[in-house]
């Protein structure tokens, strides 16, 4: 009875029923969200344990290119288990005004796992839209004038992206006559022309609104400064990674030519330059973190643009690292939401928070023992090995961006440890609840630091699996409605024959 479709169906079901349940019993309604998230975690972890080989599941029971398939490999299941985990950590246990916010969060969780698992282009578009609408609602949930205005600009930019992505999907459908990613992968040679490549560019720009890709990230600083830190942490940490994941899938399966990689590389470089310079110039913590997140996602994009497995390893490592560090940093702004100047003395009022900030900042910069260093090292070696002028330029950009990053982050840290006015220092106190949430992220980071060797092996394994185009296609077309174990043995037999 174990089916991965529950990770999408359950949160949606709960979200639909939440208004009714909350009308009859408010206290019951409060337990539903965390319970559903735990169930989602259970379903995805159960598959994770069972999985030795990627499998695909045909929803609706239709043979793969006709129906919609969910593609389950280590990468998608990893994301599918991270989603409920991170949402459990950031769930608003204390300050719930009504069921609406909970409902939106559950919809966000359901659409996010759909996006991580789906192997169908239009289905990805639908889940992406669901994700967008839920995030609009959450971004406006503060109900200040500024939040409304920022969300409106976010919505318009996102809507523009939607149109571009839909146009791209239309172009791909006109040329290949299919929507299934694996099937598109089989027909990839038909897409290696101006129309096919511009379809890719349109989808990258369209989906890139959520992934904070360079020309369409104007909303980032505004929304992150007006939404509550929790929502910023979710959007910057989790949602942006899911959008990147979609682009990576498309890249691996259908666009392995150099043009697509160059496009990603250039967009990534521009993102790094724009993000890091703006972060350097910004005068308050929230905006500094938002811009730095743009820069970091630029690095992720650069990593994925390196051809082959090296790029995949570096990209996944950068992605996971940012996924842990950025939410932690954003949660710090819950009580440190002023300008950088007002942070003076913050270390005195809440020393633990300052230490955590230092930890995250050092890892973000890439100072040796921390996980961020290993991620950046993978990226740098990948760029050196690629060894073309463009990749070496990217390397130069990356290194100078690291210097800028070190400057502004350390500058902030120094300011925290300087003396501040007494009256101000009191206000900078972090509540124990927020500190607990931040510490969770810090503990994950430190655990990653300790278990670096096995983690690295696991990453290599995941990257090898998810950068294998033939494997993706074979897996999808092997999808039948059979129990997973049987399916795995079937695939093994097939691969022996081949």
């Amino acid at each position, binding site marked *: 009875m174990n089916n991965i479709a529950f990770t999408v169906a359950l949160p949606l079901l709960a979200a639909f029923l939440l208004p009714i349940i909350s009308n009859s019993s408010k206290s019951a309604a409060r337990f539903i969200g965390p319970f559903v998230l735990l169930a989602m975690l259970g379903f995805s972890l159960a598959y994770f344990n069972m999985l030795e080989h990627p499998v695909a599941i045909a929803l609706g029971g239709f043979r793969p290119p006709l129906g919609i398939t969910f593609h389950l490999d280590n990468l998608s299941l990893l994301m599918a288990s991270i989603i409920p985990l991170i949402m459990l950590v950031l769930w608003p246990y204390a300050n719930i005004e009504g069921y609406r916010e909970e409902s939106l969060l559950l919809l966000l969780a359901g659409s996010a796992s759909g996006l991580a698992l789906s192997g169908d282009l*239009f289905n990805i578009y*639908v889940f992406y*839209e669901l994700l*967008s*609408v839920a995030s*609009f*609602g959450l971004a*406006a949930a*503060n109900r*200040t*004038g*500024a*939040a*409304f*205005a*920022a*969300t*409106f*600009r976010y*919505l*318009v930019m996102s*809507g*523009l992206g*939607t*149109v571009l992505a*839909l*146009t791209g*999907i*239309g*172009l791909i*459908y*006109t040329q290949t006559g299919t*929507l299934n990613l694996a099937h598109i992968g089989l027909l990839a040679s038909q897409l290696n022309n101006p129309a096919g490549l511009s379809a890719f560019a349109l989808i990258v720009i369209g989906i890139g609104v959520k992934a904070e890709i360079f020309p369409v990230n104007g909303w980032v*600083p*505004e929304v992150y*400064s*007006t939404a509550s830190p929790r929502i910023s942490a979710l959007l910057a940490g989790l949602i942006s990674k899911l959008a990147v994941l979609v682009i990576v899938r498309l890249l691996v399966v259908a666009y392995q030519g150099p043009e697509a990689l160059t496009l990603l590389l250039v967009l990534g470089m521009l993102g790094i330059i724009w993000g890091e310079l703006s972060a350097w110039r910004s*005068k*308050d*913590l*929230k*905006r500094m973190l938002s811009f730095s997140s743009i820069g970091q996602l630029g690095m992720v994009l650069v990593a994925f643009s390196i051809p082959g497995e090296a790029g995949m390893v570096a990209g996944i490592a950068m992605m996971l690292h940012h996924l842990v560090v950025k939410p932690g940093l954003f949660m710090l702004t819950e009580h440190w*939401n*002023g*300008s950088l100047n*007002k942070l003076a003395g913050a270390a005195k009022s809440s020393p633990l928070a300052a230490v955590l900030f230092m930890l995250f900042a050092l890892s973000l910069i890439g100072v040796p023992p921390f996980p961020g260093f290993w991620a950046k090292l993978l990226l740098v070696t990948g760029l050196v090995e690629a060894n073309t002028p463009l990749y070496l330029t990217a390397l130069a950009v990356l290194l100078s961006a690291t210097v800028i990053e070190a400057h502004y982050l350390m500058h902030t840290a120094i300011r925290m440890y300087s003396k501040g006015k007494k009256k101000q220092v009191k206000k900078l106190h972090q509540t124990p609840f927020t500190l607990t949430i931040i510490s969770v992220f810090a503990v994950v980071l430190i655990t990653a630091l300790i278990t670096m060797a096995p983690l690295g092996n696991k990453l290599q394994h995941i990257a090898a699996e998810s950068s294998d185009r033939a494997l993706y296609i074979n897996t999808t077309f092997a999808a039948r409605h059979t129990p997973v174990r049987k399916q795995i043995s079937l695939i093994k037999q097939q691969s022996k024959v081949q």
Partner: protein
Amino acid sequence: MTTDLIHWLLYGGAMGLIVIGIVGVVTLNNIFRIVLALAIAEAGANLLLVIAGYRFDAIAPILTGSSANQLMVDPVPQAMVLTSIVIGVGIQALALALVVKVYQNYKTLDIGEIHQQLSTDIDNSSGVISLLSSEQPAGERPLPEPSAQHETAQLNQGGDK
């Protein structure tokens, strides 16, 4: 010849709608009008999808007694467009709700002014002296209040206007 013309008319129409819509979203100043332009761009993308499933001398994909051996158009893009039209109207409603609320708070529909007030609001809430405010006339420059929260920032805005 007619086939060529139909080809140009249909693709020209779809691409024209997309381009006009996008130009509208990027250049228009009025946020209400931007929502309209977005709807037009979406309509263009929908038309593009339906064209992808069309073929000449085919009938609609509905089986009736007389349609046994006739060619039919592709049902898949039609299903996709059904979905995307409904999605579009949902997003449009949300966008309009936001337009109404933005107008209530900022008393303007001009995207430039809204952007400026938004940056000032964010600056005020974090207590940073705005970069933009130096470009405004002195009378409109909000006072940098160290403890200013969103609400007070808005009240200042309302009072200044």
